[in-house]
């Protein structure tokens, strides 16, 4: 099976400032279906540029990027937008939910744009299905301010899923979440990945990257390390451990002699 993402000797040079910035200097990368990849690196390492290229937000200066066999460099602005809508889903650090709008309507939004092909009933059903996948179907009518940070990010993941993308791109998806909620969100990603979705995420947290299957480290615009994760963390198990520890702590507190 050909890789879903194929990058060959990719370069990106930003020319807007006084000095041209060579942000990505020759990256080659194959990502196959059902991979779960973490992109790591310090700021300035080129990981955001690489992510923007993967997201068809930016065209490479040099090199080739094939997304599901389509050469992205050849596409014009509208075609780029179309391929984004068909093949990619986006999750951000800041959730980016519309505040006036219920969870369900937020999930429906990506279907409203471009050419409309679905009835509103179909859209509703599909959005509801995506909320079920992330475990928030019961809260479909909640506004973002009635949801916790982790729940908001799950709504954002449901929104990214609604156009049935092949690849999910997540930019620091746990950056605004506490550690326990981060594990919950990683659990959602792991579940989606098992169901066949390819996931690429940027993170700077090593323990978060440990939930992925493959870790990539960038430095100065090149890949300096590319390895499969050994002893991968499984969210379900980690959450169970946390719960056990909490219960133990509570028992200990209750059992301590009163003065």
């Amino acid at each position, binding site marked *: 099976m050909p890789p879903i993402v194929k990058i060959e000797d990719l370069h990106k040079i930003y020319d807007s400032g006084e000095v041209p910035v060579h942000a990505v200097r020759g990256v080659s990368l194959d990502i196959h279906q059902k991979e779960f990849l973490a992109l790591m690196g310090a700021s300035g390492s080129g990981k955001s540029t690489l992510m923007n290229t993967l*997201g068809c*937000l930016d065209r490479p200066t040099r090199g080739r990027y094939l997304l599901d066999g389509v050469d992205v460099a050849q596409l014009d602005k*509208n075609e780029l*937008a*179309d391929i*984004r*809508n068909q093949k990619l889903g*986006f999750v*951000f650090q*800041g959730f*980016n939910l*519309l*505040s*006036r*709008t219920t969870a369900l309507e937020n999930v429906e*939004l*990506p279907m*409203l*744009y*471009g050419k409309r092909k679905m009835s509103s009933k179909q859209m509703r059903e599909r959005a509801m299905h995506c909320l079920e996948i992330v475990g928030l179907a019961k809260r479909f009518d909640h*506004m*973002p*301010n*009635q949801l916790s940070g982790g729940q908001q990010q799950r709504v954002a993941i449901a929104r990214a899923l609604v156009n049935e993308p092949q690849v999910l791109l997540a930019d620091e998806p746990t950056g605004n979440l506490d550690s326990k909620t981060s594990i919950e969100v990683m659990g959602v990603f792991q579940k989606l990945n098992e169901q066949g979705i390819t996931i690429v995420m940027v993170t700077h947290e090593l323990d978060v990257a440990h939930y992925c299957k493959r870790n990539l480290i960038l430095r100065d615009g090149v890949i300096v390390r590319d390895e499969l994760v050994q002893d991968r963390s499984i969210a379900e198990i980690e959450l169970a451990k946390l719960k056990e520890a909490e219960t133990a702590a509570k028992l200990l507190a209750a059992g301590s002699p009163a003065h």
Partner: protein
Amino acid sequence: MPRRLLQFLLPAAVGALMIALWYGIHAWLSEDLRFLLPTPDAILGAFREHGAELARATLNTGEGALLGWLLAVAVGFALAVGLSLSPLVRLSFYPYLMILQMTPIIVFAPILVLWVGAGLKSVVIITFLICFFPLVVNTTQGLISVDRNQVELFRLYRASRWQELWLLRIPAALPYFFTGLRIAATLAPIGALVGDYTAGSSAGDGGGLGFQTLIYSSQAKYPALFATAAVTCALGFLFVAAVLALSWAALHSWHDSYERNDQ
């Protein structure tokens, strides 16, 4: 003492104290100067005496204020949407908006009377001119202060310009819009009063509160002047209360400025 009780008791106590002070000052003034500060019961007397006149004038001014305010809302909102479209449009039009805002209404009034004649039309236009600026400025600010990330998300999914405006910018601008609406609501009765004072007319169903102010002061009916002030104040409260209710209805379910208790 519970806070809730204090909330009523304290202002009531201050009010009572002020009324006492008021009577005190009135008594302390020499006989020939007492007309300067009519007592509260004298003002109540003026209400009884001029009640019908004041009620009619209040309705008249209220009508001018409401129409001018509504006109300002409609025109202000449309203009704000236009201004939000591009920085170039804002750059081109802002100086003229400023000029319009800076020119005192007193100067406009006689010109307006020449153009459209004294009466309700002039009053509505003057109210409109006073209310319109805060509405435009606040709403425009709201429309362009949308979270950059949200805009990028909309462009990412290739939403149309129209969807971006309707689904993202207008809802995000609502809190700003309501701030403008509230400022305009405090200005509307004042605008109508000033309009009536400078370009009102007693023709037809009689003048508004501004016109009555002129009449009472020229006739030295000071208690009636104080009564007019009280009515104007009440009219202002009415306008602001209506806007607060509107803004609560529009925002409370999703905006953070309203605390939620149902979580």
